[in-house]
């Protein structure tokens, strides 16, 4: 693709000596809305993180070019300042830092936005209203004690304030979370309106794409891009699942694909969510650890 905003060529990456991404080729056009889909474990979220320069992964080959600049060796913060943005599925908690302090600090990395003083306050108020964001959140510590939906709002708030050239949204778990989906949809609409930015939406549930004019669809299975087409590919996947891509993906694909279908996937999302909730409520351990009160987790 000519003059693509994001151009990934033969990208290979590993974590802990284990290869996760294989020969990825992917372009996102300027102003485009691209979707990255694939079954569980395909490596979609990983690709998002590698594009943003997450040091947990080692790039073993290939390149990432953003807005004409080779960013393959660039640190995360430099990529962010260059106009790249990644919204997380479960953003980490950062105790000790009030949300308001954090927002000010990240906005300061983008002087081109001119958001200072009154302008900043006005813009913040505007964005908070667009997302139906409660002011009381501002004094709370970043992501600490926020629900999933609230954390999503905080991610979207940052998206709208920073107006990045490319927004990579990792919505792989959004699944049936109606609130989260709403927030993201609204945010995308506002984002497109205010700065016509490009989007790469990572998902395996198509709900979120319902009212979006998707330009390109990329399909990923077992760490490889196995297909690419326009928006019609989304409908095909909805109807047939990812079975058809097994041959292209290679050996590992079978295990990844087995059990995929929209309904089953939806159920397993709920099951996974309720299991995670149950685990959080009663920490595992020897029987005695229940009897003896334990301190909060020391890291």
């Amino acid at each position, binding site marked *: 693709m000519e003059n693509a905003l994001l151009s990934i060529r033969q990208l290979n990456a590993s974590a802990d000596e284990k290869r996760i991404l294989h020969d990825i080729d992917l372009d996102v056009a300027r102003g485009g809305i691209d979707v990255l889909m694939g079954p569980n474990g395909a490596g979609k979220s990983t690709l998002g993180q590698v594009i943003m320069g997450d040091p947990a992964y080692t790039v073993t080959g290939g390149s990432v070019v953003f807005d004409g600049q080779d960013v393959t060796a660039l640190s995360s913060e430099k990529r962010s300042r260059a106009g790249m943005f990644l919204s997380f599925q479960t953003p980490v908690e950062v105790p000790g830092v009030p949300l308001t302090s954090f927002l000010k600090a990240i906005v300061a990395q983008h002087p081109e936005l001119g958001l200072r003083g009154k302008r900043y306050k006005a813009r913040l108020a505007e964005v908070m209203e667009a997302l139906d964001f409660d002011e009381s959140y501002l004094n709370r510590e970043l992501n600490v004690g926020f629900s999933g939906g609230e954390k999503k709002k905080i991610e979207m708030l940052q998206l709208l304030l920073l107006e990045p050239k490319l927004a990579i949204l990792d919505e792989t778990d959004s699944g049936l979370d109606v609130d989260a989906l709403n927030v993201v949809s609204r945010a995308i609409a506002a984002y497109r309106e205010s700065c016509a930015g490009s989007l790469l939406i990572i998902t395996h549930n198509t709900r979120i794409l319902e009212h979006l004019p998707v330009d390109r669809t990329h399909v990923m299975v077992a760490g490889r891009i196995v297909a690419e087409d326009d928006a019609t590919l989304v409908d095909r996947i909805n109807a047939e699942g990812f079975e058809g891509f097994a041959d292209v993906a290679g050996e590992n694909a079978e295990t990844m694909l087995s059990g995929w279908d929209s309904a089953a996937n939806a159920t397993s999302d709920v099951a996974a969510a309720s299991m995670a909730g149950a685990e959080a409520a009663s920490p595992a351990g*020897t*029987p*005695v*650890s*229940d*009897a*003896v*009160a*334990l*301190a*909060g*987790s*020391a*890291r």
Partner: protein
Amino acid sequence: MSAPSSVAEVDRSLYDFKKSEEGFERLAEGLTPDIVREISARKDEPAWMLEHRLRSLEIYHQLRVPDWGPSIDGLDMDHIATYVKPNTSQKSDWESVPEDIKDTFERLGIPQAERSYLAGVGAQYDSELVYHNMQESALAQGVVYSGIEEALHGDYAELIREHFMKLVPPTDHKFAALHGAVWSGGSFVYVPAGVHMDYPLQSYFRLNAKGAGQFEHTLIIVEEGADLHFIEGCSAPKYNVANLHAGCVELFVGKGAHLRYSTIENWSKNMYNLNTKRAKVEDGGQIEWVSGSFGSHVSYLYPMSVLSGRGASCEFTGITFAGAGQDLDTGCRVVLAAPDTSCAVSTKSLSKGGGVSTFRSGITVTEQAEGANVSVSCQSLMLDDISRSDTIPAMDVRAEHVNVGHEASIGRIGDDMLFYLMSRGISEQEASTMVVNGFANPVSKELPLEYAVEMNNLIKLEMEGAIG
């Protein structure tokens, strides 16, 4: 040096005090250079060892007893020499061993033949044979396992000299100094580079004819890339009339080497156990401590790990059970003195029948320990309301990019848990024992099976209050 076949044959005159013209009479029971010289002479030691003993004695007289831990008033410090030389009027026979000790042997199912040995009143041939076999098969793998006194007369004398009390210098504390002056007996183990010992070496079988090994010195050197598991002690109580144990253990773990040091300390309940154990770990080396403290009247026990090489690590798993009449101050110390070092400490503490258990730890992360990772966890269980449990963990962190986490908790067995078990027909006593065994599980699962079983039996007895 031939191994005596029974305690009765040992030359007791070694410890007979000789009055000298210089008027030492007044200090009849004091620890004097003369006594120390005698000890050294009888062991036919090299000159440097005698010098070491004498220097230690001087230091001993200069240092004060600790003021921050349990009282050791019961130790007769003015007559410390009596601990060094057994009371010559003592009948060294089975009859003089207290009834409750004999009873415990019975309850723990200790074979008759071993009982005298444990009570310090007799040797037994079986253990000598086992020890001998252990030595031979270890040697077949290149591993030297012998008495340390013997080794001082052999090929490893220089090696021992290079290491002896370098890790625990006499200046460390008063009882390290005492140890330096009057130490006697103990194990020496040398594992050459790259050698992986297939099975654990056990100190229990190493004959110690002079009694319960009150001033034993253990020195273990594990060279680069080697691997050893050493087990000290046993669950049966070791009894001795002279009630001070001031032993010393020094462990040297080379680059990339691995040493697991397991102990079940169960000194009889008249004992003052002032033991010093320390390990030094080189680059990429690892030390694992597995420690069960059950006996003694008073204990001061803090195995210490000095992580001096990059990437060195230590793991400490321990349990302390303080019953009636016991004041056990135990824990561990770790010094992280190199980059990327790490340590994980997990201890459990039980108090019952008026016992006092104190968990005391000291973690020091020096300026050199960038990238250090530390986690300390201590859980204490109070088994009744007449006992005590204290947790005194200290952390000193002087490097920036580190991660140090600590957590501790204390409480009792939940009523709901007891009720649940009892509703299934289990008596309250059994239920408590079950819970406590579960509590002790992290330690018992690190021990070889027969030791784990012994430990569980010991816990059972402690829970019944059957051990005096």
